[in-house]
């Protein structure tokens, strides 16, 4: 047993309160924390754009005929950009933002292994985003985020080329970021932290980074061929000149299926931290959760063709069905382990926890519909219908986005030294949870009834259900602004907190909030078990942390006014 008097190591001199300025965030910086915030803010910006596009899509779908869009192409551009922005400019960079901010802190490190590369990877994102949106002015891409040729080659305007170039940049950014994570996690763990003592978020980022390094080159390769077909007259995907349309689909999904895990695994890591901390209980089945991330990463490379069940040569459908079924098992292990974590805990209903619980209850629906989709005969009926749209929004919104929200409420105090407003947070949660459900659950039904996806003009028999979906979606859209307002408001007026407001055992909380540029004074010693809640040692460690980094003195409860410290940091 580690002694409880010296769990933190390092020096004990006090850390000067850092005062980062806004300008620091607007320019090149190699501080992983600044880069992390740059990722987070940039992706929030694109979230708003992607969300606005979603609102336009739902507006168009209020009626079975074209009304908002003047023609079908315009509508196709809306969902093409919506999908591309949400995946490549919102969820993936947002997860990279959390990874950047948290991984070095959780490892007790001063920065990432390659700080310059880290900054470079981030700065590829803004130009890529601009490139993508510029497409709007020269004939926007309209072949969907999947951009199947020949629609995306012979039949699409020039914005499609910009789309491919933008994704190319984002792919490179993602690969560079991932290499950095792998090296950081491999080399920069502190004394006393073996792989099996790493926080599960770090495990998840490691699994994600391995996928990114192995899979993303396939995307960039396929994009290169697509660009060549479009601008250099080659015919990799043109059957009339010896090319093959399925080549793109195979290579694209060889990346894009693993990309699903790139988008969800870091969230799985975050939810493990949030559940253990706010339920005051050790994570249930630590090794199973850590290893199941790796299993998902591995098996995730063998399931891509289930996206092509209606195109794939028939003999290949069954093998891909089997692998796709198998991948449900490690995901199930995680869900059950998280439920086990709650069992016997002391659950605190913070907003972070509410979103984590909301995730559990919604994500399981996405998992169940995923197994249904894996079953070939059922998939044949619902493939490319709203059932699929529903499924991937349950895993991407009910999964990734709920977890991003949870992570924001959990780590905002670390990043800013202030809590997000919990009352607004609960309002945000309740409205999001309900409107999310009524936006996406009915889409299962529309899909089972046969409504194809990606259509602006639909059979009038689907009108009622689409109106229900659209109105719920509008509410869901509005909830975003509660979060944005809360972020801005709490940044200047949120309740100030100390180093460790949630009394969490992982290392990022063993330094001031926000941490100084060099993160820690001296080399911090991690507590022996990142999830060792419920022991005297843990309580003693947390008390010692509070003594070392005393929380700001609380005002008497009557004083609801913001603290008198100078605002604006």
């Amino acid at each position, binding site marked *: 047993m580690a002694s409880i008097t010296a769990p933190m190591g390092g020096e004990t001199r006090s850390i000067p309160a850092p005062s980062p300025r806004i300008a620091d965030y607007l320019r090149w910086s190699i501080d992983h924390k600044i880069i992390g915030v740059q990722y987070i803010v940039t992706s929030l910006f694109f979230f708003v754009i992607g969300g606005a596009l979603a609102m336009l899509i739902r507006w168009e779908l209020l009626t079975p005929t074209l009304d908002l869009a003047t023609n079908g192409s315009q509508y196709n551009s809306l969902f093409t950009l919506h999908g591309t922005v949400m995946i490549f400019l919102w969820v993936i960079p947002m997860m990279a933002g959390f990874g950047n901010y948290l991984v070095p802190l959780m490892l007790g490190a001063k920065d990432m292994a390659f700080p310059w590369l880290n900054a470079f990877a981030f700065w590829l994102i803004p130009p890529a985003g601009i490139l993508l949106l510029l497409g709007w002015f020269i004939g926007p891409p309209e072949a969907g985020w999947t951009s199947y040729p020949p629609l995306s080659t012979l039949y699409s305007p020039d914005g499609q080329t910009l789309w491919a170039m933008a994704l190319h940049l984002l792919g490179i950014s993602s690969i560079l970021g991932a290499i950095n994570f792998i090296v950081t996690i491999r080399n920069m763990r502190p004394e006393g932290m073996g792989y099996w003592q790493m926080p599960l978020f770090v495990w998840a980022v490691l699994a994600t980074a391995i996928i990114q390094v192995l899979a993303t080159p396939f995307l960039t390769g396929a994009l290169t061929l697509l660009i060549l077909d479009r601008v250099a007259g080659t015919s990799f995907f043109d059957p009339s000149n010896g090319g093959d349309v399925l080549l793109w689909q195979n290579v694209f999904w060889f990346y894009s299926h693993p990309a699903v895990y790139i988008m969800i695994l870091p969230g799985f890591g975050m939810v493990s931290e949030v559940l253990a901390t706010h339920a005051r209980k050790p994570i249930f089945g630590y090794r199973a959760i850590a290893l199941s991330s790796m299993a998902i990463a591995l098996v995730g490379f063998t399931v891509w063709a289930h996206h092509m069940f209606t195109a794939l040569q028939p003999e290949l459908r069954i093998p891909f069905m089997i692998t796709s079924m198998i991948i449900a*098992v490690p995901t199930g292990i995680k869900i059950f382990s998280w439920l086990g974590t709650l069992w016997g805990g002391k659950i605190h209903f913070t907003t972070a926890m509410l979103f984590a619980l909301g995730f559990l209850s919604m994500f399981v629906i996405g998992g169940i519909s995923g197994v249904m989709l894996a079953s070939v005969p*059922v998939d044949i009926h619902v493939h490319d219908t709203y059932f699929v749209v529903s499924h991937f929004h349950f895993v991407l919104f009910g999964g990734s986005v709920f977890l991003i929200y949870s992570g924001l409420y959990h780590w905002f105090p670390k990043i800013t030294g202030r809590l997000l407003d919990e009352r607004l947070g609960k309002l945000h949660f309740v409205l999001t949870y309900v409107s999310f459900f009524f936006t996406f659950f009915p889409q299962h039904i529309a899909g089972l009834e046969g409504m194809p996806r990606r259509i602006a003009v639909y059979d009038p028999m689907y009108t009622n259900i689409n109106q229900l979906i659209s109105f719920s979606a509008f509410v869901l859209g509005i909830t975003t602004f509660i979060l944005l307002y809360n972020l801005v408001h709490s940044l200047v007026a949120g309740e100030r907190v100390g180093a460790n407001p949630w009394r969490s055992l992982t290392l990022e909380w063993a330094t001031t909030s926000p941490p100084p540029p060099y993160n820690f004074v001296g080399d911090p010693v991690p507590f022996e078990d990142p*999830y060792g809640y419920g022991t005297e040692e843990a309580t003693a460690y947390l008390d010692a942390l509070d003594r070392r980094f005393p929380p700001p003195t609380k005002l008497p409860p009557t004083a609801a006014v913001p603290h008198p410290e100078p605002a604006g940091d």
Partner: protein
Amino acid sequence: MDAERSNTTNSSPVLWIIAAFALLILGGLLIAETAPLILPPEASAEAQQVDNLFKILLAIGGAIFLLVQGALVFSVIRFRARPGDKSDGVALHGNATLEFVWTAIPAVIVLILSIISFQVWVSTTSAKDNEMVVNVTGARFTWSFSYAVPDHENLKVNSSTLHTYVGQSLKMVMQSADVNHAFYIPAMRIKQDLLVGRTTEIRFTPTLAGDYPVFCAELCGSGHGSMRARIVVHPDEATYLSWFDDEVNVLLNPPADPVVRGQQILSSGQYPCAGCHTLTELGWTGVTGPNQNGLADRVVKTRVAATGLTPEEYLLHSLYHPSEYLVPGFGNLMPQFQANDPNAPSYMPVEDMEAIVAYLCTLEASGENVCNLDNLQSLASQLK
């Protein structure tokens, strides 16, 4: 008896667990019963098998859903921190048996599901006796179905509606004229992509007479949503044949008037005009190209002056060289038809072109023909 004793000690965890699982299974079965309320009519032999499989999935999925939500709600209520309680929960790190169980049971479930799915897959896709072959062409943004005519090798019955009858197994042989499409009949639970450069197939056997929608399920461009057709399942072979024989009759005795012939060709759905143009007279509702109601009037009033062509020349160009004179406000999306290569999907023999143009020339308020049909004839014979 043992059971009696444990009945009286109502805290026995085994009994609780058994009761909970019985409830979950019951709940799953109830949820599965909702399937017929949601799914479209079950109009093929395949649909029945797929629906049964779906019900199994729904029952298992429903039970798992109830299990997870139940455990979640129970934990949230039972293990909530009471106000002021600053203590931690129990220091429990895992339970090897439990973890083994919740790995093994899902593994067995997905294994069983894979086996059942495989069986359904094999039986729904296997070749049937006496299949009727229908050729399907997907072109932006219409479907066209073509049937061989017995004893007339060169004749094909073309239709924009898929006709068949109860009990006749079908094999659809599908080709795309431009981009990928997907042939989808919700009521039959079948879907298959049309891939450029390949021929793909799908089979089904209708079992319920009726008229059901056919959709395109693979994004194919601006008119994707309106790329729809109907399938008419006649109750028996006789009613089907009365439709089919009428069509053959028309083919064998083509009307002499090119205008009537043109109208017949266009309404057969052999060419993909309906998906892009609106023409009320023929039931076209496409919106990708110009509205063709009153086309002849418009050609005379604006296009003749804009292009310097006679109306018949202009319309001929619209079919064989559409990119040369674009209608303002529209992109170059109209497919270019040609009269040289009979095997290409864009093939439109000169005779068909002549008839189509002759018909298009009558699309004006008064119904008069605005073109010089003799001139059209000589243009056509030059092309041949």
